[in-house]
Each structure stands twice: as C-alpha cells, then as structure tokens.
C-alpha cells in the first residue's frame, strides 16, 4: 500500500498536502517550487497532456488546446452552462447530454477526466516527494456541491488511480486546519470565497473526553461565484474601454484575450496590497493601452459580486438559529478573501475582525491532509460531523417535491419511503429523486430517475420500501426492498447528470492510456537512467591505469555487481534496479577513492599553492 494525501481540487489552483513526522500538515511543492498547481490542462501538439504551470503558459500560446476552471463544469449538463459559455472559453461538444464533453485540440474529455489529469499531476508531485507510490486521498469539494458534482469529483479520483477515502467539504477542512492551529472553541463561521465557488459554514467546536468534535450546524453557498466572476467583470470593463479607445475587439482574439486576462489578474492581486495600480496592455499591433486604476474603482466594480455572498451567509445563520453577534470567530478561506473589500464587508457584518492567519490558499489542503491522516492511521482525536447542503426529495403527484431529508441534516442521513402501485398489474413504479429547496420538481436539481420493478398484482398490493441514504461523502445511495417477500429489489438508476457505470468502466480503460506517468514506471525510467550513468562511470574507471592496483577479489565483486545491475535494468522492477545500484556503489567505493585521489593529484599538481 502506498501513501495517503489530502488534495484541494480547486477551480483556479489545486494543492496536495500530507502530515509530517511532527504531526503537522504541510503542502507539497511541485517542480516549479510552488505549492499551488494551476488547475489548467493543455493537450500539446504531440497529443501529450500538460498540467499546471506549464499548461498555464500554453494558455497564452495555444488557448484552443487548453482548458481552465473546469470545476465549473463538474456534474452539470449542457443547458446548465449556457450562460457560462458566454464568458468562459469552454469548447463544448454540442452532442453532450448527461455529461458535458469539452474539446482540447482534436479530443473530447469529460470534466471528470480533465480533473483526473490535475489529480494525476498532484499525485506525481507527492510521489516524487515521498519516493513512494500514492494511491489514496481525501479530496475536498465545495460544501454546496450537489450529489452529481460530488460524484463527478469522486469519479475523477478513480480515473486518476486514487482511492477516494472521503470527500470533505472545503470550509470544514479549513476549520479542521484552524482548530488544530489554534485550539479554538465555540461557534465558528468559515467564509470560503475561492476562484469559482463560495461557501459559508457555521460550525460548533466541542471538546469531549474522546477529543474535539467539529459539528457543522449549517452550510450554504453558491457553486458559481468566485474570483473568476471578478476577473470576468474586470475583463468586460477593460475590454470595453479598449474597444472604445482603439477600436480593437479583444474578445475576437483568443491569444490577446488570455494575455489581457493575465494582466488583469495581476492588477487584481496588486490591489490587495496597494491602493493603486496601473493596467498596461500591449495590443497585437503594438499600440499600448494604459489605465490608472485606483482601488476605489476596483471596489465599486466588485462590490455587487461580493454582496452576492451575503445572501447565503444570512441563510446559513438563520438555519443555525444564530445571530451574527453569536459567532465567536470568523475564518477567511480562499484567495478572493485577500481582497480588502471582502474583509471589510465580512468584518462589518459579524462585528469582529476575521481571522486569516493561515494562508487562505493552503488551509483547505492542510485540513484535507488532517482528515486523510485520521482515516489512514485510525488514531482519532477529532471528529467531523458534516451536513448535507441541500434537501433531498422525490417528485410526487402534480410535480410537487416531497422532502425526505432536510438540508443541513448531519450525514450520514437516511429516509425510508413506502411505495405501492396505483393500477392493476402495474409492473413498475417510477421514482424521480431531486435535490433543492424549491416546491416544484422542475425548480429543483434532478439527481436520478429509476423504476422499481414489482410483480403484477392488484393495485395497491405491492409494498416496496426504498431507502435513500446520504453517505459521509454527501453522495446518495438507494436501496429497495420488497416488504412482502423481504427481498432486495433490483434497481437500475440512471443518473440525470453523470457517468453511468458502463461509461465509467470505459473511461477507466481509456485512462490507462494516460497512465504512462504512473509512479512505478516513472521510477523505473529514472532508475535506469541512473544505472546507465553509474555503469558507464564504472566501465571507464576500470579501464584506467590505477584500476590495475585493485585487489582481485574486489575486482571480481565489481564485475559481479555490474552484471547484476545490467540484469536488473533489463527487467521492470525499479526497486531491484535501485538495490543493485546501491550494491555497485558499495563495490566501487575503493575504486572511486583511488580515482578521486588521482584526479585530485592531477588537479593540484598542475597549480601553484596560491591559486588554490
């Protein structure tokens, strides 16, 4: 068994974290030295998948082969994202139905597959760090994600070759990291404003004899509200200005659009620390657009977006039956909380300065690592009691929704419903499962439809009990039982948005095509390269004159170690290759010493003392 990690699969950035030997959560850096991996995926001209910082660079030069903010597409249908398509450069297969397919170059991928590429990248960061395989993970999701969005995230984990031990809500993970950091007690509001999603969770932190309990009282949010929206508002404003001044339509030029977007994001970041910035953008024809941009102008532009977070905040407090003044601590999470206006609005509302001691980009991943460690080690000194963000119901007569599990119920949660037939010899009962707060089925999110099979009988005789259960991941499970026979009924569920089992199987097969980056294989390649280097060096050293002074037994040892290593290199076991490399290293220690002395003598001998 390999290692377990915590992963924050974010809209704009993703991170991977683990628990160090001192028991502290730490983020792992990638090859670029940063812990943040841009959630950008590109398909390069050779058909190779590129992820992260390298893909972000490609966004500027080959935007048609690159995708970002794919989290916005998770668990959604084509009709859901019509509005987003006006703003985001997603290239969607018009024939996609239950699951969106986005185009990268000449290939189509589901959002789960694209997310799996990001997860694979993080997995390889962790494997390079541990020098060991990573095969299990806790992955975080926005608290307000519905069933389909959660399932799509879990699918992504599977496609990336990870067993998903648990999906943890992002604000809850942050609370966990904060709780560990500060030993907090009382009622905590976590305000999580990220790149693409907004969540608010209200928690109660309780000490008990067994350990600390993090009980979520209520959660609310908007899975399509984040820093992306701020970037888009800025983009709309500045591109209109450029169009007015230069008669140049930035939107019509994908490369220029990405270049401008990059400039604007940098300006946004500047305004978090400074009162003033200058937006400078070079048009493709060489003309330069310059605009002074004070923070006041920025605040005016983004205030309506920030205010959209306050509706969910009020609803979460109402559901928790708390007033803003009854909150003991407010914790800020997510990159967008760096915006001074956000801090001010949140601080004013709660009447207290919010906490932001931990890096708001990293805190969710750190919390995920904590939960991963709890699940992995079995040593438990804290317990998360999370809730389902949306009410679960079924469609009844007249398209009205009957609520079975109310929102903010602690999970796992379940409900049982008894169904019968209305017509003589009816052989099936149609069931439509929904998620949402509205009264009518058409206004709620359709999760799935299925038909209960019943043997033909007079109307009303059938008795089928259906159990709806939301597990600790916030994902629904359905089981049916015929009360007359006591047998489990078979049900074929067709998810409204999401992959069927068959589609998932097919994708798992296809994902192997991209699994060339798998740990064992990567290790083997690296070990072979290293083996080549040491074999070449040994052969060269043995050919030198000083090697003749080696005792015969030593010489025989080296020859046998070389043979053994060559044999191992021909095989596929990277561990064996490493072991044989070590053996050869040991066998050639003396030889290396002799060679070193000789080289040193040569080097020193040629120079005068003062030069050394």
């Amino acid at each position, binding site marked *: 068994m390999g290692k377990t990690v915590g992963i924050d699969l974010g809209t704009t950035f993703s991170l991977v974290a683990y628990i160090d030997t001192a028991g502290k959560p730490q983020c792992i850096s990638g090859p670029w030295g940063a812990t943040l991996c841009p959630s950008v995926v590109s398909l390069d001209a050779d058909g190779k998948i590129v992820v992260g910082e390298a893909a972000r660079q490609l966004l500027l030069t080959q935007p048609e082969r690159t995708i970002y903010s794919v989290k916005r597409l998770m668990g959604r249908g084509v009709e859901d994202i019509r509005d987003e398509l006006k703003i985001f450069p997603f290239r969607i297969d018009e024939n996609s139905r239950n699951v969106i397919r986005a185009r990268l170059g000449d290939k189509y991928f589901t959002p789960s597959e694209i997310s799996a590429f990001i997860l694979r990248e993080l997995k390889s960061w962790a494997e390079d760090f541990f020098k060991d395989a990573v095969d299990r993970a806790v992955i975080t999701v926005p608290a307000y994600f519905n069933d389909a969005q959660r399932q799509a995230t879990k699918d992504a984990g599977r496609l990336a070759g990870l067993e998903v031990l648990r999906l943890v809500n992002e604000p809850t993970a942050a609370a966990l990291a904060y709780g560990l950091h500060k030993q907090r007690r009382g009622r905590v509001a976590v305000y999580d404003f990220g790149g693409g999603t907004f969540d608010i969770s209200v928690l109660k932190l309780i000490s008990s004899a067994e350990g600390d309990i993090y009980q979520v009282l209520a959660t609310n949010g908007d899975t399509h509200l984040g820093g992306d929206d701020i970037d888009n508002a800025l983009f709309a404003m500045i591109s209109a200005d450029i169009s007015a001044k230069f008669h140049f339509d930035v939107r019509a030029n994908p490369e220029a659009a990405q270049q401008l977007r990059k400039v604007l994001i940098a300006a946004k970041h500047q305004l978090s620390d400074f009162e003033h910035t200058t937006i400078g953008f070079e048009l493709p024809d060489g003309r330069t657009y310059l605009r002074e941009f004070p923070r006041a102008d920025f605040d005016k532009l983004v205030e309506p977006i920030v205010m959209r977070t306050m509706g969910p905040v009020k609803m979460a407090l109402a559901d928790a039956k708390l007033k803003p003044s009854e909150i003991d601590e407010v914790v800020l999470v997510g990159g967008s909380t760096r915006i001074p206006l956000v801090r001010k609005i949140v601080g004013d509302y709660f009447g207290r300065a919010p906490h932001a001691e931990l890096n708001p980009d990293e805190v969710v991943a750190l919390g995920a690592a904590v939960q991963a460690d709890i699940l992995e080690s079995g040593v438990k000194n804290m317990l998360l009691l999370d809730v389902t963000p949306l009410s679960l119901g079924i469609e009844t007569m007249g398209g009205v929704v009957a609520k079975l599990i*109310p929102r903010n119920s602690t999970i796992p949660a379940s409900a049982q419903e008894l169904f019968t037939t209305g017509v003589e010899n009816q052989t099936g009962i149609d069931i439509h499962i929904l998620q949402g707060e509205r009264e009518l089925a058409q206004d709620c999110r359709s999760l799935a439809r299925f038909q209960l099979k019943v043997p033909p009988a007079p109307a009303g005789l059938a008795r089928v009990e259906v159990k709806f259960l939301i597990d*600790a991941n916030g994902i629904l499970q359905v089981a049916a039982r015929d009360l007359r026979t006591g047998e489990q009924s078979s049900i074929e569920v067709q998810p409204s948005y999401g992959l069927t089992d068959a589609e998932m199987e097919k994708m798992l097969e296809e994902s192997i095509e991209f699994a060339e980056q798998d740990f064992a294989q990567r290790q083997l390649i690296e070990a072979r390269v290293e083996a080549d280097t040491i074999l070449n060096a040994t052969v060269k050293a043995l050919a030198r004159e000083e090697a003749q002074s080696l005792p015969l037994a030593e010489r025989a040892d080296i020859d046998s170690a070389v043979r053994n290593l060559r044999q191992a290199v021909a095989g596929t076991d990277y561990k064996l290759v490493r072991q044989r490399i070590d053996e050869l290293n040991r066998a050639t220690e003396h030889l290396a010493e002799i060679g070193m002395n000789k080289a040193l003598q040569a080097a020193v001998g040629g120079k005068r003392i003062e030069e050394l």
Partner: protein
Amino acid sequence: MSVTKTQTGITPAGTQQEAVCWSCKAPSGGGHFCAACGKIQPLSREADYFAFFALPQKLQIDESSLEQRFHQLSWKLHPDNFVRASEYERNLALERSSELNDAYRTLRDPISRVEYLLLRAGVRKEGTTKQQAPPELLEEVFELNESLDELREAKSEGLPAGAGGDLTELRAKLTEAQANFQEKLAEVDAELKAVFAEWDDVPVGIEGDAARKSVMAKLNELLNRRSYIRNLVRNVGIELEQG
C-alpha cells in the same frame, strides 16, 4: 449517486431478545456493539429512535444531555472508524450512524419528537394533516383570508393612483393579524408542553392504556391546530414579502 445492490444490513428475521452476534455467534445483548466481541451490530427493524438512545418513550427530554449522548455515540459509530473494516461492517456503520443522525434530528426538536411518537403509534399519518380551521378560529381565519384576497387583488391590478393608502392599510392589518396568529402559535406550543408532562406521567403497562389513548388524541389535535396556524402565518408572510 451510487446504488447499493448488496444487502444493507437489514436483520434477518429474529427477535430482539435473542439477538445473536453475526460475527462471534454469542448473544449480542441487543446494543450497538456485540456485548461479547465488540463488533458493530445490524439494526433491528423494530428499534425506534428512543431505544436508539436508550431512552424511555417520554416527551420531555433534556436537550443538552441528548446532545452529549449524540456526540458520544458519534465517536463510536461514525464511518470514520470503519474505513479499514470489512465491507459488511462498513455498511453496518453507515446504516447505524445514519440512524443515529436521523434519530437525533427527530428527537432534538420537540415537535418532530411528538410527531414521531404519534407516527409510530399509528395515531398520525405522515404528510396527512387536516387542513380544517379549528372551530374557535373560524371567524378570524375568514377575516384573514379576505384581507389576503384583497391584497392579492390590489397587487395583481397594479397600483392605481390613490390606492397606495389602501394598500398600506391592508398591509398593516395583515401584519397585525400575523402577529395575532403568531401569539396563538405560542399558546399552542405552551399547551403542547403541558400535555408532554401529562404523557410522561401516564403509568406504563395496561393500566395506562386508556389515559395513553386520550393523551395521544389530545396531542394529535394540538399538532393539527399548530400546523394549520403555522401555514397561515407562513402564507401571510409570503404575501407581505412579495409586496
């Protein structure tokens, strides 16, 4: 969504008294875990939410001790504890911890607590509440509905010049009526509380049967009244807000 087609841990036929542990085959003691080997046990289909917390079927519950008990059981039953257990045990933990959460959600709120009790006793049916006005409220309800109709009419006709005054008056009237009914709601809640005590004093066993039946009828009647008034308050609230 995923679909479980496997057995979800529903107990095979058998009575609670002679519950036998699925793992060590010794008598399990009927608790959450086997008394002999400590393995988590399947839920009995007869068990109710009160029994889950080892509570008698009483309506006056100390909410803070219920919460404490909930937390204690959460430590033991949460799926976190069973990540590395067999699939069968994982399913048992899932079933039992969801039952724990369902039970706590139901019992912690006095109204859902009494509704559950009556539901189990067959006195009340789910989703079927009588939508008849309690006789003593008939007059006030009639008046309220009239005002509501007037408000809806005024709103649908738009705001003709000079009608602003009428609308304001209507709103004031409705707001007053809403407050009035809210007061009545509080009265029903107080009455319910009194009957809770009455229920808890009913002697156990056959000697309490008659009293139990009459208290249940009383509780049911109060619940119907409560849900009727609550709907009224809510509807008025919606109309006032939409203005």
